[in-house]
């Protein structure tokens, strides 16, 4: 897929909501909150990710794909047909919006890798890995096609426009999810490209992110060593793959992964009790190239929860709040108050200290 040669740089505002009891809410809420932070974006990108929106297809990978032209669609579908059972395919419903004159061709597919493994190109891969490979393959090899969402019972909706325009365009008020994340973007050097908007997703990981990761160069090379193809030159792509590597492939829990990405300082590690010191020292040694350095706040959604955290010296803002079983995280407190005027608790997480929220057992599935 086409992309700018230079590394993507952008500033942003972000918001996330999770209902721990799995209660689903309409996309209208998150849009309202995100619109309050319009000044954190510049209209060159906005997007949302929602979990729990496709309950009737919850066992299928939901591929959201954008095409520059129909030829790319033909090539992609040919590849999908060979390797996947396609339960349903349809255009992603959109509505005409004044500010959005041009947009890619948008389709979604509910698919399962073919059970006959011999039919697949790479027979030995487990389903998730095979889907990751498919996403990498389509995005890097089929010109004009870009998979922007590939998880189960979740989806990303994003494009070039202001948050309210993108929400109306994708008719988000018609979707109900138990986790929502939203992002308004202020890119400084990427011409408006729909795939470049956030959230960035892979399987059921979705990332929205504010700030620039100054360690991008080595984070990228580190991931490449594990077979990730970084085609977008965005920090958010890096974050998504780092989580995929550390959590899904290496089996670290979310909290340990966040600790590696925004690691404690040696000064503090040296003062820890022996066991913790050994664990943290090893974490920094082994995952040093994964350390995300520079300013960021990140919301990381997955089908069972939402994680928010910021960099090790807190150069980007993050505020969290709770109200009953709902947890909110945003760049600004006012964005939370816009949809929750009297939260039970509001706090600013400390540098590198993740806020980890998980669904109650059995909810949201």
């Amino acid at each position, binding site marked *: 897929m086409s992309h700018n040669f230079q590394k993507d740089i952008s500033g942003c505002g972000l918001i996330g909501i999770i209902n721990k009891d799995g209660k689903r809410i309409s996309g209208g809420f998150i849009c309202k909150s995100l619109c309050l932070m319009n000044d954190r974006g510049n209209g060159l990108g906005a997007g949302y990710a929602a979990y729990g929106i496709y309950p009737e297809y919850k066992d299928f990978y939901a591929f959201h794909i954008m095409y520059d032209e129909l030829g790319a669609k033909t090539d992609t579908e040919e590849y999908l047909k060979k390797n996947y059972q396609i339960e349903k395919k349809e255009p992603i419903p959109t509505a005409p919006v004044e500010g959005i004159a041009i947009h890619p061709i948008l389709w979604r597919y509910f698919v399962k890798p073919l059970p006959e493994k011999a039919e697949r190109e790479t027979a030995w891969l487990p389903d998730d890995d095979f889907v990751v490979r498919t996403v990498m393959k389509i995005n890097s090899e089929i010109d004009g096609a870009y998979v922007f969402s590939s998880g189960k019972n979740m989806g990303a909706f994003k494009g070039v426009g202001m948050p309210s325009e993108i929400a109306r365009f994708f008719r988000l008020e018609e979707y109900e999810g138990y986790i929502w994340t939203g992002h308004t973007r202020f890119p400084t050097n990427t011409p408006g490209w729909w795939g470049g908007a956030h959230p960035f997703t892979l399987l059921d990981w979705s990332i929205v992110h504010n700030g620039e990761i100054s360690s991008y160069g080595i984070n990228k090379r580190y991931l490449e060593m594990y077979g990730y193809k970084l085609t977008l030159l965005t920090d958010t792509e890096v974050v998504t793959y780092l989580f995929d590597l550390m959590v899904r492939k290496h089996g670290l829990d979310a909290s340990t992964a966040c600790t590696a990405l925004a690691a404690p300082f040696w000064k503090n590690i040296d003062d820890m009790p022996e066991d913790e010191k050994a664990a943290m020292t090893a974490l920094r040694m082994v995952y040093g190239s994964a350390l995300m350095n520079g300013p960021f706040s990140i919301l990381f959604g997955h089908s069972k929860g939402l994680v928010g955290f910021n960099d090790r010296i*807190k150069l980007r*803002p993050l505020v969290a709040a709770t109200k009953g079983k709902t947890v909110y995280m945003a760049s600004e407190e006012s964005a939370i108050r816009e949809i929750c005027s009297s939260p039970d608790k509001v706090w*600013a997480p400390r540098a590198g200290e993740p806020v980890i929220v998980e669904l109650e057992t059995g909810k949201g599935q």
Partner: protein
Amino acid sequence: MLTIDAKGIYYRELNSKVRDAVSKGEKEILLKNVNGQYYIGDGLRGETTITIDGVPGNDLAAFMDGPTLIIKNNAQDNIGNTMNSGKVIIHGNAGDVLGYGMRGGKLHIRGDVGYRVGIHMKGYKKQNPVIIAGGKAGDFFGEYMAGGVLILLNLDGKKDDRPMVGDYLGTGMHGGIIFIRGDVDKKLCGAEVGITDLDNEDNKFLKEYLEDYCKDFNLKTEDIMRVGFKKLIPASLRPYGNLYAY
């Protein structure tokens, strides 16, 4: 008294209304239903008192020179950025980078404050900026401090298990005074900081500052001063004199 309903109003319109009112000599303004509007009080001069109902947005009171802002709730980041004079009273918490390069006036916060509070505050001649925070503070409190007064009170004590002040306290400090209510762990301080007890003169100044603070929040100075303070001052006016080769 002029009341402006800020509900759903973009900051440019809101602040322009405020500027108009102030230029017409309005001495008391109430902003209702504020939520997230940036730059309230930005660059404003005069004697006006503006009361804000809701959570104001970033850069509140930036470059402000005179007015008093009263915020009944929490406030966000970058409050009092390069503020020249006047006063901001916040009944809730305040965010990060509070009073960056502040040259004068007062910030009184009842609750907690974020990271890099009082960063590079500076005093000159009669200008002496003061920030008093009633709760706890994050890392880099008083970073590069070059003048003025920072006071941290930790009034709500054991509300949570976070330390009253974060790491890198006063790192790069080369002017001004920090008063901390309670004990200070030397390990948290930058190398440029000296910790001492207060002398009579210090106590006199501190009391003056606190009396004004207590008036704003209906607190009692004696209650606050019952717990001992530590004073942090720069060990040198030129902490990096030996760093360079000529």
